[in-house]
């Protein structure tokens, strides 16, 4: 059993949703969040972490990856 995380950047810094691959209901909720945000223009990334919580690898993802250790959603961009 492993706990996976989806982090969504927002006004609070970020909001974290967790899921367990053994728990289908949890996974469906997070998957729905991922898909809803993707439709709104957010970009998804799967993240691998190393020692000291530091990110060692980030890969763009078009679809929800239930096996990803961690996923991050960043908001769409606009010209400044």
């Amino acid at each position, binding site marked *: 059993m492993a706990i996976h995380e989806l982090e969504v950047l927002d006004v*609070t810094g970020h909001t974290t949703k967790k899921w367990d691959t053994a728990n289908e209901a949890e996974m469906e909720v997070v998957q729905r969040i991922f898909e809803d945000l993707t439709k709104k223009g957010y970009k998804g990334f799967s993240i691998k972490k190393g020692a000291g919580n530091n990110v060692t690898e980030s890969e763009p993802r078009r679809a929800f990856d239930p096996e990803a250790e961690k996923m991050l959603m*960043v908001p769409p961009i606009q010209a400044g």
Partner: protein
Amino acid sequence: MLWRFIKTRVQDLVAALRARQAPEQRYRRNAEVNRKAAHDRAEKLLLDYLTPEQRETYRRYGWFVVRGQSGNHYSIWKNNGLYCNICELGEYGQIVSRLCAHAAINVPMGDHLLTQKLMLEHHEAEFQRVANRM
């Protein structure tokens, strides 16, 4: 007698005014605390995503360099706000142009910088298309 009446009325008015302002002041205080907490959370998250070299320059000078898929390098600055805070660097590290694009929603500065970093690293063409160039 009249003086005592006026004094009481003034005291009542001051008390009423303070009571009216109290929720607003409390709201402002809470908003400031929440804003600071969000800023700190975003800053911490950004630092997790930076390489040791990027973290070093960010802490010391307020900028870090990222490499796009095209091989181009960009320096992302936090000190001047979001207005053209990205420099596209040339072959020798000289500034070729300044780019201006950021998260389209209200997020703390650290989240804006993280969004710019990940977009430049993985969706460089889209970032270049959206950004204003100076």
